[in-house]
């Protein structure tokens, strides 16, 4: 069996498995009752979709960000995009409390876009011979924006909101409360249409221009994808770190850097990673659960260190 098919099979297994994990016991034999269907329709299925969509979208966003930055160690959630989205959302809730949810989302995504533009403005000045400087600057840049958000939230007593946005978890996902993630997933899927252009971005500005690419336009569209995905994920489920970092790296090790081939794999692997982590998060203190961001923080950091020191040394 080919790799994509194998991945798809694994993902399906995880998806179906995740439907039967949760506080209310549910076994396949129960499926004939109406209650079980209601449970699956209102809670389990939306949750599984939310997990798959955000995992896949975040992995794709991470991949695109790495190509634009030409650095394998950056991802939106740690490089200021996620924090900017939080800050924007906070400001919107403060200044226009009555705004429609769609307007709030749009403004959060806009803030995320501005945040990532700022990040790239800084990284352009960094010397290319110090590749590890870029993620470091990103983490601190994100930290500074994050502490601004904390400061404002503290002043207006919204710290609890911020806490929710900062640690991603799916426990509140129900029918009617996650549908915006389809937009994030859709935007990420659309990026497949320009996968070739994104692959060329990874060769650098000079080569891209030489190959006749409208560099600025493609970069900007990549940034829009990143910002929309990050903003929507932060708003609906909260920040999930490391997915956008670890998954593209692992996939490119197997499938190379041609996005037309590797992007579906990246999406699948991202979804599978978050799905498996979410299942673990629901089982570890059953019938309670831990935030998926915590679980991924552990697994992702371990994988990252392995990338940094293990076989992956050639990438740095």
């Amino acid at each position, binding site marked *: 069996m080919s790799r994509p098919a194998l991945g798809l099979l694994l993902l399906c297994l995880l998806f179906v498995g995740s439907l039967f994990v949760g506080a209310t016991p549910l076994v396949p034999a129960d499926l004939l009752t109406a209650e079980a269907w209601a449970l699956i329709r209102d809670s389990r299925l939306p949750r599984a979709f939310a997990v798959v969509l955000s995992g896949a979208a975040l992995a794709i966003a991470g991949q695109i960000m790495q190509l634009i930055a030409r650095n394998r160690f950056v991802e939106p959630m740690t490089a200021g995009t996620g924090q900017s989205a939080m800050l924007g959302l906070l400001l919107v809730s403060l200044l226009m409390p009555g705004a429609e949810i769609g307007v709030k989302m749009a403004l959060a995504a806009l803030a995320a876009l501005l945040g990532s533009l700022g990040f790239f403005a800084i990284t352009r000045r960094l010397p290319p011979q110090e590749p590890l400087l870029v*993620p470091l*600057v990103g983490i601190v*840049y994100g*930290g*500074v924006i994050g*502490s601004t958000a904390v*400061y404002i939230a503290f002043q207006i007593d919204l710290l609890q909101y911020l806490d929710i946005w900062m640690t991603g978890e799916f426990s509140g996902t129900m029918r009617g409360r996650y549908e915006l993630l389809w937009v994030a997933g859709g935007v990420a899927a659309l990026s497949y249409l320009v996968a070739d252009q994104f692959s060329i971005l990874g060769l650098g500005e000079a080569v891209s221009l030489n190959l006749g690419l409208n560099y600025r336009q493609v970069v900007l569209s990549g940034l829009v994808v990143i910002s929309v995905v990050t903003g929507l994920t932060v708003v609906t489920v909260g920040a999930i770190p490391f997915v956008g970092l670890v998954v593209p790296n692992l996939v490119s090790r197997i499938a190379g850097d041609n996005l037309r081939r590797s992007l579906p794999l990246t999406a699948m692997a991202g979804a599978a990673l978050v799905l498996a982590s979410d299942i673990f998060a629901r089982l570890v203190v059953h019938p309670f659960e*831990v935030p998926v961001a915590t679980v991924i923080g552990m697994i992702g950091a371990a994988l990252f260190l392995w990338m*940094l020191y293990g076989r992956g040394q050639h990438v740095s």
Partner: protein
Amino acid sequence: MYHNRLLLLGALCLAAVAAYLFTGVKGSLEFALMFRGKKLLALLLIGAAQGVAAVMFQTISGNRLLTPALMGFDALYVLILSAAVVVLGAPAYQQLDPGLLMLVNATLMSGAAVALFGLLLRKSAADMMRMLLTGVVLAVMLRSITGLLQRVIDPSEYAVVQAASYARFSRAETDLLGLSAALCLGALVLAWRMRHRLDVLALGPVAATSLGEPPLRGQRGALLLISILVAVSTALVGPVAFFGLLVSALTYLVLPTHRHAILLPGAALIAGLVLVGGQWALERVFAFATPLSVVVDFLGGLVFLLLLLKGVNR
């Protein structure tokens, strides 16, 4: 050389202390002094511990951007604390003598820190960016494990751990003050006695070896002292991410020297000045509700970015 500046810093620090103690007293001065005295002592201890630990760590790692907090020292402390609560259970844990607990914690942490960070320093001292990144990611990992442990335990147990996991300068734990002061002062005295060896270690492992100072032993000794200092300060106020960096950057700005006889007391004084002065300004002058730790983190983060960008362009 720079002694005048040290004296000036001392005077400023004293002024901040006086301002903190005597301004805005309503009612009995005696009561206020007793109450504020403890907090003041805690702030000064934390300042000295964090400042000296940061400068020492930067010396042995040969890197002005690293601080113990960035490398996850305090995350390690909170992790050990949470693990202890999980293993022992909250009732048994709370019956333990808090002083004893702190000692055991500090010992465990020193062992773990020397093993972990000693290895890291040896393995990748040459590649500073890699080491920094490792430290930052390691800190994330330690915090995530702590987070997981804290979710697994029940709420009553969580309350025990919670106090240690958030920085709060205004509500320092004053129960442990006596023991912390003893530990901290002991470590500070040892650090002071290491000052000439630190001068040599700052030249790098090769030069240090040829000058008759075994770098590994020096590193280990310094790491031991650093982990005691960080353990004390974390036990008192909880983790503070960028404070050490802010202090060491200010220290090198005010006292541009390599002599630890000047740097160590300078860092302690500047840290005390920032903490006491900052707390005073926030509490009495601006009447801010924002915790000092948020402001310090913000400023420290900015300083870090500036240092990074400046260091690169140099």
